[in-house]
């Protein structure tokens, strides 16, 4: 490798390099720029945490759906129209008063794309990947989630093709909310397991 795209070469060089590479691959007939446009648009607009949030809101309001979701994640996701790459072997992990789940991929950055989209930078960072398996309580506290000692913390390292989505606890004070309002409360971080879902009265 030339090493021509490390940080020392700067962002504009990197942009130029990728433009040159794409131009070459287009000329060689290996890449269709319109297809690249469409893939980028799909992952910027069609998939993201709003998908997972709909799954969570449905599970909170429909006990039969929740059972199906915990029993067979991909089938329950398909009911809502979600699926695709990185979702074939999805498992949903339910947080309870006694158990808190948190997800990582220490070897690369495996992540449940169909329900959460592409992972945030911190999920891919060496700090998160190295530390969350060794000191999850400390990392979660640093990220703003203090868990009582009696709550068991379960870390799930996505080391094969199984992908994990956390089903967070439904916050108090949301009994009157409908699916859309509930989904609006559900954050990406809560579905990774580094946050709780805050209710409307939690400020």
């Amino acid at each position, binding site marked *: *490798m*030339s090493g*021509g*795209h*490390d940080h020392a070469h700067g*962002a504009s060089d*990197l942009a130029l*390099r990728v*433009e040159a*590479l794409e*131009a*070459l*691959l*287009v000329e060689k007939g*290996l890449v*269709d*720029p*319109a*297809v*690249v*446009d469409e*893939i*980028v648009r*799909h*992952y*910027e607009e069609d998939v*993201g945490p709003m998908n997972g949030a709909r799954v969570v809101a449905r599970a909170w309001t429909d006990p039969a759906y929740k059972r199906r979701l915990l029993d067979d994640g*991909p089938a329950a996701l398909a009911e809502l129209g979600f*699926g695709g*790459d990185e979702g*074939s*072997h999805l498992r949903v992990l339910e947080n309870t008063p006694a158990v808190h789940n948190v997800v990582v991929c*220490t*070897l*690369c*950055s495996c992540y449940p794309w*169909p329900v959460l989209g592409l992972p945030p*930078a*911190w999920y891919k*960072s*060496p*700090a*998160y990947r*190295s*530390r969350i*398996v*060794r*000191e999850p309580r400390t990392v979660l506290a*640093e*990220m703003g989630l203090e868990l009582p000692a*009696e709550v*068991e*913390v*379960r*870390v799930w*390292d996505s*080391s*094969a*093709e*199984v992908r994990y989505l956390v089903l967070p606890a439904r916050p108090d004070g949301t009994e009157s909310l409908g699916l859309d309002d509930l989904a609006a409360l559900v954050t990406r971080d809560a579905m990774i397991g580094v946050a709780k879902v805050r209710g409307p009265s939690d400020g």
Partner: protein
Amino acid sequence: MCHTIGRVNGIHDMGGLHGFGPVRVEADEPVFHARWEARVFGMVRSLPGQNLDAGRHTLEQLDPVSYLQHGYYGRWLASMERVLLHLGVLAPGEVEARMRVPHAAPARGESEWSSPPARSFARPVDRTPRYLAGQAVRTRNHQPAGHTRLPAYARCKTGTIVRVHAAMVYPDDHAHGRGENPQYVYTVRFASDELWGADGEPGTVVHLDLFEPYLEAA
């Protein structure tokens, strides 16, 4: 004795490493931080003939300094270029030469792309799983000179099987062109003190999804 250091162990295998500092969370983070990241992602996803395991292994072969400096999409770019050079699609120096030539954005035609269907990694096999849920297992001192999905921190550790999955494509072989060789996958739970000794945090456990060849009966 279980040795956990060997020449094949890479920087990508980060579980349990010290020294990376706090997790820095960016508020309202965009999906891509720069247009080049988006183009790299889209190009890699659209290139034909993908082998996910081989792709991961190519990323793992970056030298440790480059691995850390490149960042996530920088690694994708370096890995893509490495593969294209290896295949002879790109000649050495071809990208650098092209960078010196002004070029306009490529013309767009009609796009035929649709979101790819889910790819299952499960495969039928004519044998039953060797281990059962609830059984204690020990991970082997498995350090092949190539790709594996057994993290270093989980070698030579005793845990309990909590779930038996289907047999799935075995990355250790598939990454190296040795076929799919499907193997049963088990979710195994490890106590923190088993993994980290006295430094393990009380009341925490780690689950990993491990292929049958990584395991032996405890």
